[in-house]
């Protein structure tokens, strides 16, 4: 099936056997996994959570298992950082690029967040139990459905039990964490026959305010979440499958200590219906067509905050409907995919402020922007020789946007008198990746070009206050598309019978028309206490470079040491540092595996952030390092598995904040967790 390039990282919920085999470096893993077009999506022994980097770097596993949040899973990725605004709904940053430059899809479905303050990255609307894997494609080499993925694309693969599995299967998880009294309960069940399968599950999380290192409580950091999912598949004929999925996810009373407001409700309905035809032999492999619909309602809330100068209501809505059709084909040399996709998304948000005694003030912050986007993508993995392969991917997309809300349109016209009510954009990307394997080493390099249209916030956002730099942001409908040239390379070496591995990995993005908020001194801030106004603009050029080095050493059959160092640079057109670029970061861990026991001792840290985006309102983040210990024991009881996991995070109870902690909110202090999974 797909061959994996260094830019492709698979993050999987895989079987226990897999874990044991793949605790350490294995370079080629693709065939072992549950790929989207695999006929039987097999194993529901989905008990463990693994993060695997094909580049052989940072290969770790999340010891919390299925109880871990999506954010915790994502934080195990080597190319991913997470921006925290609280203890819930972290924003994934790929290759030091955030939501604007990362395409996130759920099983290929487009979904767009509904909060103008980015409180709800779409990854917050699914749960671990919904997913089979998270596929991260780094850079421009995106998955076929992704659009605008300069930094990378995340595809959250939904979990399906598939046909021909165990007739019945039940799974239950419970977890507790001392810090914030986090409680997690989940249960799901599956039925599988040769012609039919169905899964359904329920997940609940609840957390009180957490405590930072040293024991001080971080106010407004609690959250609560329920998630339910169901999916089913029917084989109409041997080679024809109809599948449907449904997810309901609702978070309530979510605190955002880094922001001025919390969230009363963030709710998503995600549904899809797909039809797949498979060809067991021949050039064509499968043809999947999926229609989908999702909508998100997001309601902010400041009523529980003390000293609110002006109470505000800030609801946001996003709904998306679309389809894609993906044809996969392969012969000995080629492994091809052709994908057509079409979606229509609407984003609306408004704000009503209630000054004491005076008339309410109302404005439309996202003017009900309707985006119709359609694109055609091609991917081909060409096996040049046994040792060389070339991956080619390209996508061309066209979109039209209309501002459906007149009030919002006229408000924005104050700033852009010549603006229109409808805009069109054409975006595209093309990427080439070459891979050469010689003896015990592997070399990859690639190049690509891609562009993205401005996001709704960047083009039409209206007085969106950003607590990061305390500026009000106004969108700019005159923005040009941003584009980037990407160059990347990786080298991997394994010696001593694969007991010692080294990897080097680097990519560089050379942007044209980089979109970022620019000072506009002539405008007056709306938010009380705001420093001023920024309007999104295009910088002539900007550069982001990411590098990493990793090493793994299998000291003994039961003990291994892995370490990873990464460094990144971001520069604007005046060679000043861009904001939110990771400082020098390192992780190092010793892992143990003996019979049914696995354990890990880990040190993670960042150096002081030397090149911080001072110009963009970023403040320096000091160096930090924390130690964590975790362990897992699996007890096979008459064919049923019972797994107990426990660990301590931030062992020394250090108070620290990372560069990605919005407004320098402190990270969790010492946290002891225990969780239990049972499979029947």
């Amino acid at each position: 099936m797909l061959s994996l390039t260094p830019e492709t990282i698979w993050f999987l919920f895989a079987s226990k056997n897999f874990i044991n085999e793949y605790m350490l470096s294995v370079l080629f893993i693709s065939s072992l996994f549950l790929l989207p077009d695999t006929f039987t999506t097999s194993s529901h022994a989905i008990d463990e959570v693994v993060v695997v980097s094909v580049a052989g770097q940072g290969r770790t596993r999340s010891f919390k298992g299925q109880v871990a949040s999506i954010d915790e899973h994502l934080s195990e990725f080597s190319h991913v950082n997470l921006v925290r605004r609280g203890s819930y709904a972290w924003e994934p940053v790929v290759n030091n690029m955030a939501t604007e430059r990362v395409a996130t899809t759920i099983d290929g479905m487009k979904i767009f967040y509904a909060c103008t303050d980015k409180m709800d990255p779409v990854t917050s609307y699914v749960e671990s139990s919904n997913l089979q894997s998270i596929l991260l494609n780094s850079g421009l080499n995106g998955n076929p459905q992704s659009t605008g993925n300069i930094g990378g694309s995340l595809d959250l693969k939904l979990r399906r039990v598939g046909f021909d599995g165990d007739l019945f299967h039940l799974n239950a998880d419970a977890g507790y964490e001392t810090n914030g009294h986090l409680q997690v309960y989940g249960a799901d069940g599956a039925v599988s026959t040769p012609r039919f399968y169905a899964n359904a599950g329920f997940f609940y999380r609840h957390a009180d305010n957490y405590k930072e290192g040293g024991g001080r409580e971080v106010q407004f950091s609690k959250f609560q979440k329920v998630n339910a999912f169901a999916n089913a598949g029917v084989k109409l004929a041997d080679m024809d499958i109809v599948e449907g999925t449904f997810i309901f996810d609702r978070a309530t009373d979510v605190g955002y200590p880094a922001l001025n407001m919390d969230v009363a409700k963030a709710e998503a309905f995600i549904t899809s219906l797909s039809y797949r035809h498979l060809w067991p032999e021949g050039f064509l492999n499968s043809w999947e067509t999926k229609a989908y619909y999702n909508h998100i309602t997001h309601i902010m809330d400041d009523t529980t905050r003390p000293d609110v100068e002006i109470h505000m209501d800030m609801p946001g809505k996003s709904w998306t409907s679309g389809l894609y059709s993906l044809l996969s084909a392969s012969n000995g040399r080629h492994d091809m995919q052709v994908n057509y996709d079409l979606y229509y998304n609407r984003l609306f948000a408004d704000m009503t402020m209630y000054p004491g005694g005076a008339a309410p003030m109302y404005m439309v912050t996202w003017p009900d922007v309707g985006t119709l986007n359609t694109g055609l993508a091609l991917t081909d993995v060409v096996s040049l020789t046994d040792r060389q392969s070339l991956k080619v991917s390209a996508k061309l997309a066209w979109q039209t946007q209309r501002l459906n809300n007149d009030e919002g349109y006229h408000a924005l016209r104050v700033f852009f008198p010549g603006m229109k009510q409808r805009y069109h954009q054409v975006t595209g990307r093309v990427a080439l990746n070459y891979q050469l394997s010689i003896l015990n080493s592997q070399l990859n390099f690639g190049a690509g070009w891609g562009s993205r249209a401005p996001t709704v916030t960047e083009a039409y956002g209206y007085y969106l206050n950003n607590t990061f730099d305390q500026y009000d942001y106004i969108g700019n409908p005159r923005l040009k598309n941003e584009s980037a040239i990407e160059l990347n390379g990786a080298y991997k070496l394994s010696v001593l019978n694969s007991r010692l591995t080294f990897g080097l990995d680097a990519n560089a993005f050379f942007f044209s028309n980089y979109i970022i908020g620019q000072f506009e001194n002539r405008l007056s801030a709306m938010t009380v206490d705001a420093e001023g106004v920024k309007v999104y603009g295009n910088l002539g050029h900007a550069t982001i470079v990411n590098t990493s080095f990793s090493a793994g050493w299998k000291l003994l059959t039961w003990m291994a040491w892995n370490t990873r160092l990464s460094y990144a640079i971001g520069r604007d057109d005046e060679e000043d540092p861009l904001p939110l670029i990771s400082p020098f970061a390192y992780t190092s861990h010793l892992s143990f595996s003996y019979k049914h026991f696995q354990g890990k001792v880990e040190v993670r840290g960042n150096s002081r952030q030397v090149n911080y985006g001072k110009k963009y309102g970023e403040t320096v983040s000091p160096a930090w390092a924390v130690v964590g210990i975790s362990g897992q024991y699996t007890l096979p009881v008459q064919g049923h598995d019972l797994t107990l996991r426990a660990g301590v995070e931030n062992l020394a109870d250090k108070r620290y904040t990372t560069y990605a902690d919005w407004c320098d909110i402190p990270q969790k202090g010492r946290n002891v967790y225990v969780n239990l999974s049972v499979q029947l």
Partner: protein
Amino acid sequence: MKKVLMLFLAAVTLGFTSCNSNDDENGIVIDGIDLSKDVDCCSAEEALQVYKFLQTVHYIPELSTSVDGLYDVKAFSKTGTLHRGYNDLYFVVTKKKTGNYVKFFDIKNVTPLMNMVKMNMWHSTPVGGALEVLDTKRPAVKHGWVSLLMNTSEAGYWQFSYDIEVLGSKGRVEDQVVNVEALLEGQDWLKSFKVGNDTYYLSLVNPNDWKTGTNAIQAYISKKSSPATTPYAVAAETFTVEIDPRMPDMGNHTSPGNVALAKQPNGSYQGSINLTMTGLWRIHLTVKDAQGNVVAGGDSQKDGFSSLYWDVTL
């Protein structure tokens, strides 16, 4: 009114049927009403436009009268009431006999007078010039305005008088008491300033029509008469009114691209104002004379803005 509507329904019906028949083209004949032969009255199209317009305004009974038992004179405003500050007034005359709108009539000497009860003093207020035809589409509607300095209260009340002449018949409305309402909180559309011994009034025209976004802003500058019981006419002098809209509830947030009010040939002042959201907008004013000297406002209060301002709440 009902009659008129019926008339036009009938006219429309006839219009359709006439496509199919060869009716003579002498006009529409219904119940003895012969529009085409009443030269004082509107055409069917004009009457329809007047009728439609009257659906958007409300009747003020106190200012209405009849002339010689032949004509009904009706006054209208947006709400059917008057309020402090600028008010548009509309007059329509119908023939009692047929209900048809009369095109040609004159209303003169519109004189609002306020009796300040405690001091037993009388004064007038800014009033627009002679009433004019609203527009060419609606020749039977006459438009004028008054800008009332105060609302009716224990302190005083308003009386209105005017003269009317319709097709040679003369009439007068004399000392009709009309209630003048206060504006809601957050609305203050009439301000005054002094230059030497002269007092001027700044009347903001209909900010109720404003919406979020770019709006035309219109005002009149009137000069206090002597004696004060003579209606205050639009000032002959030329000024410029610079505007600085602020939101006092939002840390004096402002908007870009506002255009100062400049005098127009019709005597009004026009500019452009940008409002970024709804809520209370305090429009701080700087009035300059024809030479560019600041004659009013433009000073700095504690908050740093001019003490001369209009308040408008969207």
